[in-house]
């Protein structure tokens, strides 16, 4: 019975990590838009390339944050959560 419970905990942690990483879609779309617009701007005004590039990198870094939150949650779910959950389960029994 205990093995089954531990198996369910491990499986659910892995599933949760996978579902959390769906958040990676958002930054992907956002950064793609940002880079596309930056390319358009450089094409229109090639002399402002350096300013546009540095602004774009800043914007990308900020847009990336939500995806990185999901990544941190996923890493916690895979590496940290199973140990804590199993400890709680064993102490409850």
């Amino acid at each position, binding site marked *: 019975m205990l093995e089954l419970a531990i198996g369910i905990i491990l499986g659910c942690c892995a599933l949760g990590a996978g579902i959390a990483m769906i958040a990676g879609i958002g930054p992907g779309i956002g950064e793609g838009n940002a880079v596309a617009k930056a390319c358009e701007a450089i094409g229109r005004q090639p002399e402002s390339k350096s300013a546009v590039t540095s602004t774009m*990198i800043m914007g990308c*870094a900020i847009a990336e944050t939500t995806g990185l939150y999901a990544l941190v949650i996923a890493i916690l779910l895979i590496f940290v959560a199973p140990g804590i959950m199993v400890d709680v389960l064993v102490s409850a029994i």
Partner: protein
Amino acid sequence: MQMSEKNTKTLKFKIVDCLLLVCIFLPIIGAIVLEILTRAPSEGISLSGAQIFFTIDMPIQKLYITEAQINSWAVVIAIFFLCLYMTHGLSPKANTKRQLLLEWIIEQTEKLVNGNMGEAFKNFAPFIATVIALSAFSSLMSLFGLYPPTSDINIIAGWAIAVAAIITYYRFKCGPLGYVKGFCDPIGMLPLNIINEIATPVSMTFRHYGNIISGVVVSVLVGAGLQGLSSLLLGSLPGLLGEIPFLQVGIPAVLSVYFDIFSGCLQAYIFAMLTMMYVSGAFNIDEFEIRKKKKELKKIKKANGGN
């Protein structure tokens, strides 16, 4: 004249130079030796956090001295001696490559700070240069096969808390009342502003840590996958032939160029840029000037009243 002066300096100058160069690499070599001595033998490829060397009992919580802290201190000492090496033998006329490089770095940093923070913050250039150097060299530690301090969340959280302290200091520059007023700026937005204030260091921490750790995870996964593939392809061959890791040659190096060098340096730049933006955004320069003038007027009035 100049040549002879240079020649008289040469021997002593060169000895000090060599000593400083040795001092730059000594902490890194020490960290590598420590890593080799204490590395736990592991089967295959595994992901693990920083090794804990020893713990100190503290009243609230145990203090763990980990690999990340040791490596971080190694980076700090190495940067200290690098600065001594770069500034060794400065002359009013820049005639060495070292001095020209140093002047270029300082010029670029001052340009960056002036462009992003304005004239009021021109003393910030050394701090920003320190942040960039610390973050970039910490990420580059992985090139020596060491545990990079930036892939430990505690180290980056420490930097982000330091930045948050600076932000709070600049908010307090307009007085305690101005600090409270800044939180109630659009009326009724107090809770959101407080959350925003807490979210700043958290998001800075997660951004830097997430970028570095994602590189580490992807590199380890690719390494494990290539190991499995090459053993699958050559596993049927007898003896040593079956153990040649031919797929693991070259491909991880490409990933390392992107994740260790490019991503590490980019994150250092972004961390510094965000520091500059947040700090200069926290300081309301117009209000500060008004306050300063009011204080001066009060002082003059007091002095007149006393007379």
